[in-house]
């Protein structure tokens, strides 16, 4: 009997406690890469937002490991009927949620806003979230590939200027090896979504898919594969694991590190005692004609009440076009999604020249193309395996590799 009373008291108390909090609405939000975005979203944007909108409480879900995990989590939650209200998704994974009818269009909300400027967004980024003429995803953070250099190593090897083509990178590798850098280079072939393969394709002005069909079966694709082979062999690049690639650079073991600008903030926090600079992504004989936009965007997947959906829209707006956007640039190496943020940033880029490299390249922004259909993630893996075989030395014949990859990917596309 006493136990029952005790239980009843506990139950009543917990109900009273949970309902005594005076928030009108609670929205649930999920985002990826806690190491990059905890400081941005959890520690900065959410407190700022809750202060600006006292009636709304933001509840954060467990962070997603990466963009693939983010996509899978939403798919599972959709099957289980446990979707959050707002989710941050990799730019190249958005189409899946539109195809499956999980994401909500932003158009009705944008129409209601008096002065919501679509113009503030980078066009390539906005295009990525636009399907059938409707905006489903608003860009949150934009990244581009950049070159990270250990200036102490470059000086020691007598390299005066940053390389602007891959051939110059290979020459630099030889010089670096001559002064004792056994691992002069790491090049991010393994970045999610075949991002660097797309970077070499866009460098020549070609997308990886055209009208839903394989587009790397032509001379541009072959050229991209041959450039990778030349670079990996010429620099004797080792197959370092994906999560680790930054560590050897931070430890001054790798002198040139080609990666996403998103890592610039993390490198500056973790690097050893050397002078660190970034520079523009080299091109294939000439400056790149385009580069794939990386990063993520915010999508509305709420299945809740109208009040919740309205609150969720306010949060999306805050993150992508308000003060939230400037926080992205301050706390990460990403570019802010919206030009409006630049005014709030002031002298930020003058004080942080390493983060400015990507901004200088912003004119090159092109679409980070997703593979359509159910095999989307499996195709990413097929191309990943193909690129890996160049790194490990299993593939020597680039024509054969190109044919093999084109045929396999074509058979997996819808």
């Amino acid at each position, binding site marked *: 009997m006493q136990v029952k009373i005790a239980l009843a008291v506990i139950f009543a108390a917990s109900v009273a406690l949970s309902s005594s909090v005076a928030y009108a609405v609670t929205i649930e939000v999920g985002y990826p890469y806690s190491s990059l975005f905890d400081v941005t979203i959890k520690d900065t944007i959410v407190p700022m937002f809750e202060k600006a909108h006292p009636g709304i409480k933001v509840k954060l879900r467990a962070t997603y490991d990466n963009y693939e995990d983010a996509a899978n989590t939403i*798919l599972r939650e*959709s099957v289980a009927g446990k979707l959050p209200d707002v989710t941050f998704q990799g730019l190249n994974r958005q189409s899946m949620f539109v195809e499956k009818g999980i994401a909500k269009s932003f158009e009705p909300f944008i129409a209601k806003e008096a002065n919501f400027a679509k113009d503030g967004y980078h066009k390539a980024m906005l295009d990525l979230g636009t399907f059938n003429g409707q905006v489903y995803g608003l860009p949150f953070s934009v990244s581009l590939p950049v070159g990270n250099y250990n200036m102490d190593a470059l000086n020691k090897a007598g390299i005066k200027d940053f390389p602007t083509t891959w051939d110059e990178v290979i020459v630099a590798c030889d010089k670096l090896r001559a002064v004792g850098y056994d691992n002069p280079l790491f090049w991010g072939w393994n970045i999610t979504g075949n991002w660097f393969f797309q970077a070499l394709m866009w460098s020549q002005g070609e997308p990886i898919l055209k009208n839903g069909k394989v587009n790397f079966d032509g001379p541009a694709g072959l050229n991209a594969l041959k450039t990778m082979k030349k670079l990996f062999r010429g620099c004797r690049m080792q197959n370092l694991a994906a999560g680790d690639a930054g560590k050897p650079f931070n*430890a001054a073991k790798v002198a040139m590190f080609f990666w996403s600008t998103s890592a610039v903030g993390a490198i500056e926090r973790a690097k050893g005692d050397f002078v660190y600079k970034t520079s523009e992504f080299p091109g294939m004989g000439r400056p790149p004609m385009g580069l794939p936009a990386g990063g993520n965007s915010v999508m509305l997947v709420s299945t809740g009440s109208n009040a919740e959906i309205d609150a969720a829209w306010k949060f999306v707006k805050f993150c992508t076009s308000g003060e939230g956007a400037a926080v992205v640039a301050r706390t990460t190496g990403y570019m802010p999604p919206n030009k409006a943020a630049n005014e709030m940033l002031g002298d930020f880029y003058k004080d942080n020249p390493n983060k400015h490299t990507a901004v200088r390249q912003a004119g090159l922004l092109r679409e980070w193309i997703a593979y359509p259909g159910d095999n989307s993630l499996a195709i990413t893996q097929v191309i990943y395996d193909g690129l890996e075989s160049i790194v490990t030395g299993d593939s020597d014949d680039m024509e054969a590799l190109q044919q093999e990859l084109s045929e396999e990917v074509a058979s997996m596309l819808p």
Partner: protein
Amino acid sequence: MGHTRSHFWFVSPAVILMFVILILPIFVAATFSFTDYNLGSTDFKWIGWKNYESLGKFSSYSKMFTASLTYVVIVVPVSVLLGLGSAMLISSLRFGGELYKAIFFLPVMATLLAMAYAWEFALDPVMGVINKVLDDGCSVGWFYKFFTGSWLGFNPTESWYGGICSDRMPNWLGNKKYALGSISFIGIWQAFGFNMVLYLAGLTSIPRDLYAAAEIDGANSTWEKFKLVTWPMLGPTHVFVVTITSIRSFQVFDTVEALTRGGPSKSTYMMVYAMYEKGVKQNLIGMGSTLTIVFLGFVLVLTMTQVYFINRKVHYS
């Protein structure tokens, strides 16, 4: 006493639980393996044996079978023999045995996933402690002589160690030549302590007088005593240890996920990892289910043959 139906009530919880949490999931997986179901899709198509056919069609699956079988063939015999050897050495000690038992059992108690990350640090090609030691050892005379085999008269520059000294330290997890070996090494390191404990238990159950009897019959050398008494008397233990180790080796997942993700070039693409990659990471529930069913079949066949072959030679006391 009248005939009641109470026995049904007594067994029903066990039967229902077994059906719901063991049989039903297998049945569901078997059903899905004939579909192209994709997580998040609202419908699916029946595609017959197409998923099973793709196992033979794509090279990644043949690499999967090669990797899994190679891993089992390396890890099972080595960890079983190491377990037996260390158990016999420890049981022959007059004191200090408890300490060795504790040390060798440590890797079993530690979480394999956490240990995998520790190994990742140690095996890092550029910053890992293993390559640091090997690299520094190149300039230490006796170390260099010992590992290049030049003390045996070999040409030091032609040996493996001489080669990496004059070139670059090995990339243990990123190079196809070493990756499966490294993963297997961690598997052995983790498994043999468990086998040792099982063998220690087996050894204590061998009656002492059998050794005395063998001695009277003229088996004087340690080897003969081992061959005539210890080995056959451990029969039931062998069956258990080999079966358990094989199944556990087939199930290897933690180290692959943490260290290589199936690479490089699918050289460590184990079956359970493939299941996870297809079914969980890529949402291809149909293909993931197919791999699950094939995996279950493999383990079943392996266990049955093993039990059959070894059982025939086992002397149960």
